[in-house]
């Protein structure tokens, strides 16, 4: 009996997956985004094996080869101390993706839990406390506050991640809060309440699954946004510290060499655009996928 249920559930989920994929794949741009995103992720994971000069991502100087224009030996040229920009961009993706993963895995669960609690306990003191604090964090653009906090913590990747995470949970909190307040009067929540289910059960098993679609969509779009904020902070000089390659830092350094040695700024900048673009395309695809589902 149980096994049958499981099989049914599995096939159902497989069916809904293929249906979802069908909807997703109807937009060729989303598929393109997914392909780019996967290649970026794979490149980042296997950076030491893929990049032609992995040692150039670290403490390395070779002044004789500094400022070389793009060529077959150095696809993106070399920087002012002779490091291969292509290799550094590949490693730069690592830091960007790690940033996105860490920030979202810190901000999302905390935001979701707080949002669930605040949404469920409406008109209680706990809702007021959580949502007012959320308001405070949302009162200024995330970049501004993240900038202020990173500066005061002293600039490096870890602090950058902490600062951005601190800026990010309120967005999830507000999203899940509004979802929860509208869901909590639905019949299945009422039913669970009546059957005496625990609060944790109601929040996590009844309400949370219904928040998945919007949260997942937001997460994908946000990953791109987090990377933008991270790159912006590094551009100001508050990110990955040298010699490790931060994409924003590379753009900032390269900007000093414009226009003669344009490749130093242009390629890292394009690399940033590509990864954000792929996240956005995938996010839009997910939104289409879920939006059709809802109708």
């Amino acid at each position, binding site marked *: 009996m149980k096994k049958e249920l499981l099989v049914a559930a599995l096939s159902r989920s497989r069916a809904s997956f293929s249906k979802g994929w069908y909807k997703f794949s109807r937009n060729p*741009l989303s598929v393109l985004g997914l392909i780019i995103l996967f290649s970026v992720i794979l490149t980042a994971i296997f950076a030491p094996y893929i990049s032609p000069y992995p040692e150039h991502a670290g403490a390395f100087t070779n002044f004789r080869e500094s400022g070389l224009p793009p060529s077959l030996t150095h696809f993106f040229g070399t920087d002012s101390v002779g490091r291969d920009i292509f290799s550094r961009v590949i490693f730069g993706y690592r830091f960007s993706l790690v940033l996105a993963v860490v920030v979202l895995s810190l901000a999302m669960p905390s935001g979701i839990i707080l949002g669930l609690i605040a949404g469920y306990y409406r008109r209680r003191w706990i809702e007021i406390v959580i949502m007012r604090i959320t308001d405070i*964090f949302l*009162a200024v*653009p995330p970049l*501004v506050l993240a900038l202020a906090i990173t500066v*005061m913590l002293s600039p490096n990747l870890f602090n950058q991640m902490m600062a951005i995470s601190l800026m990010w949970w309120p967005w999830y909190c507000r999203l899940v809060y509004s979802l929860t307040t509208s869901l909590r009067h639905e019949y299945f929540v009422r039913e669970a309440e009546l059957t005496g289910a625990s609060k944790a059960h109601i929040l996590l098993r009844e309400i949370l699954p219904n928040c998945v679609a919007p949260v997942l969509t937001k997460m994908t779009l946000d990953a*791109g946004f987090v990377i933008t904020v991270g790159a*912006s902070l590094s551009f100001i000089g508050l990110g990955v510290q040298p010699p490790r390659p931060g994409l924003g830092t590379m753009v900032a350094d390269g900007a000093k060499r*414009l226009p003669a040695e344009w490749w130093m700024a242009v390629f890292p900048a394009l690399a*940033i655009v590509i990864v954000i673009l792929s996240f956005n395309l995938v996010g839009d695809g997910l939104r289409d996928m879920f939006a059709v589902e809802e109708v």
Partner: protein
Amino acid sequence: MAKYIISRLLQSLFVLFGLSLLIFFIARVMPGDPARVALGSLATHEQVQNFREEMHLDKPFPVQYYFWLRSLLRGDLGKSLYTRRPVTTDLKAYIPATLELILISFIMSLVIGQVTGVLAGYFRNSWFDGLSRLISYIGVATPAFAVAIFFLLFFTYTLNLAPAVGRLSLAAVPPPRITGFFILDSVIAGKFGTALEGLKHIFLPAASLAVANIAQEGRITRTSIAENLQKDYVIAHTVYGIPRWSILFKYLLRPSLIPTVSVMGLAFAYQLSNAFLVELVFMWPGFSRYAVTVMLNKDLNAIVAVVLVIGVAFFLVNVIVDIVVSFLDPRIRLQRTGG
């Protein structure tokens, strides 16, 4: 409406209070010695100690906050440790430049975003629509500093079309300050040459700032135009002989503007934070560059002030957005006044 604004105001007062407490707390708790930073390396220990006392840095946190709040009520935001001037003086000096920049870029993004959005929505699935969608995808995905650098490389270094930095050419004499907006002030002073220069200088930074918003607004407008085009009233207007341009840019634009304007508050936030980077690239002597500078210099008073100013600006913009939306959309207006 008044009742609504008052309630918003009270709410924002609370938020700003919390914001100041937050940023104040972070600033005071973090490691590093602001007094030392302010006085530089040549200062003696005695000088540093005196300075700490003067700035109440030796007092416990609540006392410090109390002193800060007390002087805030007198309109005093303290002295900048970086420029050694009252923060309010700095703000007065730098805010107009940023306001001018954001205003111009706002107008740019509104006009271009709306027009492309309307056209893309009207001719949806045409080549124009496809192209504008592609560009808008890229526009949204490109961080402001990258846009700025691409623009600089293309328009300044390659085509030599626009100047690279500043509000005016370096040797130019700024117009007498009336509004602080160089272009406007120049026109008032009758210096059209300066005004043109100002326009030339503001073009690239404003365009760099506008790109993301153009993309975003274009997309939203396209969707809502496409949605509204299906509505009966468009057919009705057409049938009753109202010309197509009037339908498109009046009867359709107004309802389609509502979603665009509704996200304008968020768009402004983007624009303001993007200004942080764009002003750096273009050496725009504005508030955002000042903000970055004081942040990098751990200039406590200035940081708190800068964050609060942004909070206030954000709040004001949201209220304006609400008012504009309710002006555009009688449904909301009537709901609000009708109670």
